[in-house]
């Protein structure tokens, strides 16, 4: 009988032990010297949660501002609202989805064209067609507008030229005249993040230096001062981010000159070089043989190579002779790269000095992404790098980030804020966020 009693005690004891858990004492999250009650985010597509070549609900839901906003709630942050697409129109602008791999390992992407939020197309004379999206009328904390440049923030007609901005405004294009900056300032806020400026360099670069222009350096500096002076006019605190090195993204590093040439040489061993139409100086372009320093864009249709092109000296293969160089729009050549980098460096000098003068936190995205390009990054046992698809950081468009990439960026913003303002916004669990989805 005694042993039976003993058994009962042991079993009861085990249940009790099962209930007690070790705990680690962590300091209570603190807002430091900042009021986070209304946080707003300014920026472009990266801020909006754009991914896979489009803006869609699932991407919006993992935008870095929404992650930061959620984490801020433990240190006095309020509700963080985003201009989300409805579930019925969850695919927003449409986007690319990975549907398989070719035998040579190259990915097959397919556009998603159902459940879109497109409400029409507006032809704007002298500008082109503007795609318009279903209006959003609720509260907004995330002011990320895909495509916007710093150059556009005080431009009154911009609400008629960018469908993503137009959908946030009450009025319909072409009647809008509210500037982006005025729209953002229309409701008071206590804290902001600002990651504008990428498109002032990126739009030029992704068009191979052919379809857009770099924003003038002094214009950039003047506008950046206007922006930050306005945002901090009532003593608001904030965090700003630098412009990443545009060449650190897979959009420019996946389809390489060497890879295309190797493909051509498999069929025609005699081919010695690819030819491109390269920048000489100013706006003068001339054909020359491509080198590994020339960056071919991700969307270059490689099937064009070798196709016969009519020239004054007869039909010649595309891309393989000085008379039939690869079109400018597909290549950011060495001098264009150098030009872009020069501008980006200047923009970042501006960003850092303005931030310093206002005592703002800085997330140096330039340094962070360049470091990942060179060394990769390991987070919680997951290795990420700047490679297309396999790297886990960049989405299928090769420019914007995956959920994992946005979560990593959110933590970098949080670290910068905490360092500057002595706050302790908790970081997010990056392991909860995925890279590219595979079929």
């Amino acid at each position, binding site marked *: 009988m*005694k*042993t039976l009693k*003993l058994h009962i005690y*042991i079993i009861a*004891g*085990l249940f009790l*032990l*099962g209930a*007690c*858990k*070790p*705990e*680690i004492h*962590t300091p209570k*999250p603190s807002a430091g010297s900042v009021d986070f009650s209304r946080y707003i985010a300014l920026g472009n597509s990266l801020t909006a949660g754009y991914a896979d070549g489009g803006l869609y609900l699932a991407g919006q839901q993992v935008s870095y501002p929404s992650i930061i906003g959620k984490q801020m709630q*433990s240190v006095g942050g309020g509700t963080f609202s985003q201009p989300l697409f409805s579930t019925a129109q969850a695919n927003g602008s449409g986007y690319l*989805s*990975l549907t*398989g*791999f070719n035998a040579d390992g190259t990915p097959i992407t397919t556009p998603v064209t159902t459940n879109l939020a497109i409400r029409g197309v507006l032809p704007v004379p002298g500008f082109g067609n503007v795609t318009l999206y279903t209006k959003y009328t609720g509260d907004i904390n995330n002011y990320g507008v895909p495509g916007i440049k710093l150059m556009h923030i005080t431009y009154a007609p911009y609400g008629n030229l960018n469908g993503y901005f137009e959908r946030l405004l009450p009025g319909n294009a072409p009647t809008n005249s509210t500037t982006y900056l005025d729209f953002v300032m229309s409701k008071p806020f206590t804290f902001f993040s600002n990651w504008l400026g990428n498109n002032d360099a990126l739009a030029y670069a992704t068009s191979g230096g052919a379809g857009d222009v770099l924003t003038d350096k002094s214009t950039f500096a003047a506008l950046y001062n206007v922006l930050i002076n306005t945002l901090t006019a009532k003593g608001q605190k904030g965090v700003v981010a630098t412009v990443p090195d545009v060449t650190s993204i897979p959009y420019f590093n996946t389809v390489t000159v060497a890879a295309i040439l190797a493909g051509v040489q498999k069929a025609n061993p005699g081919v010695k070089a690819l030819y491109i139409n390269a920048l000489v100086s100013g706006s003068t372009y001339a054909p020359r043989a491509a080198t590994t320093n020339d960056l071919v864009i991700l969307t270059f249709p490689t099937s064009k190579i070798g196709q016969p092109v009519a020239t004054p000296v007869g039909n010649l293969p595309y891309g393989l002779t000085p008379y039939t160089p690869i079109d400018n729009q597909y290549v950011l050549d060495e001098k264009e790269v150098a030009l872009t980098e020069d501008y980006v460096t200047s923009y970042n000098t501006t960003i850092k000095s303005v931030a310093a003068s206002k005592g703002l936190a800085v997330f140096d995205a330039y340094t962070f992404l360049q470091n990942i390009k060179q060394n990769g990054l*390991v*987070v*919680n*046992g*997951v290795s990420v790098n700047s490679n297309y698809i396999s790297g*886990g950081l960049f989405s299928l468009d090769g420019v914007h980030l995956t959920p*994992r990439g946005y979560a990593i960026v959110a*933590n970098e913003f*949080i*670290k910068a804020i*905490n360092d500057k303002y002595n706050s302790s916004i*908790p*970081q*997010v*669990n990056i*392991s*909860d966020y*995925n*890279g*590219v*989805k*595979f*079929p």
Partner: protein
Amino acid sequence: MRKILLLVLTIAPLLAYSQGFQVNLEGQKQIGMGHTGTGIVQDGASVFFNPGAVAMLPENYIQGGISPLLFKSVFNPAGTSIQNHTSNKVATPFQAYAVWGPKSSFWKLGIGVYTPFGGLTDWGNTWQGKYVLESLNLKAIYIQPTLSVKLADWMSIGGGFVYNRGSVDLTRAIPLANSNGDVGQARLKGSGKGYGWNAGVYFKTEAGITIGITHRSQVNTTIPAGDAIFTVPASLQSSFPQPNTFRSTIPLPATNSIGFGFYPGSKWILALDVNLVNWDSYKTLSFDYKTNTAVLQDTKSARNYQQAYSLRGGAQYKANDKLALRFGGGYASTAVLDGYVTPEAPDANRVYGTLGLGYTVAKHLDIDISFEYEHLMQRTQTNFESQLSGTFKTDVYIPGISLAYHW
């Protein structure tokens, strides 16, 4: 009573199993005394603690016990207030011994079946470190036939051959999501074997102090062809060919011990043990896959464990003919250097205290119970390999019970 005893002995091997890597639960009397037993003679558990002392046992023994173990770890990721807990799983290290020799002979034979190494940690599939480890169930069951010989009234020696049956079942998430957003998983599951030995010498000195010295050898346990099961999105399955197998070897380390027994009066036994564990043999954890692809390469991760020691002390007070009270405690240094702590065994320096009680319930039959509380110091780490960064803390609770029949 005999029937109950047999029941315990038969189910023990089925219950099997273990805890956070080195499991020091080899005899209930010894647990009660802070895991001391190298320099004293208590019962059949001497087969483990000091084969050299077995011939000094005054009687023959058959005994078995289990120690249901709750290993409770928590992880606080750096920069967050998240607390990741391991799930409540009860591991059951066990120990069974038999010792026999003719009455008042100079020799004795023994056999021991015990679980000196193991690990049962289940962090789940949603925590911060899921890409490092979801769960690990590592078991090692040593079977040790032993011969011990009394060379003189004051000295005996003994040794045993060790056969180890080891198994591993490890899961971790793979950071490749399918179209539903579900991530992949790797599961490595297999068993293998290893061999070693255990030898010791035991002295009774003229000063009335007893001394034991032992060496338990390293046991390299090889899993030659475990199952390597990878669940990944369909379009990537060819990079993770199925079926596949892996080979892995784990060097279970050698342990050197010296122990002393003191007898201040007829009711008291005081014991002191010092152990030096040659964990420095555990340099890398490797998995060698039978079929490799560009994506699925063999892995080699550095562990670089260092030699670790433990100090153990304990006492037994014989309150009357039937009842013995025991207590003890100790300190064990960690084998894991900073930067190498992993969630498999979130090791740290540890302290523990034990209590025990022995009761002779019938002629020839002892029942022994013990309880141990073990605390692993809080340790804040960033792992070199995984960059998993945060603070681990662990508490271990181990009740235990055994029956010993002696004649």
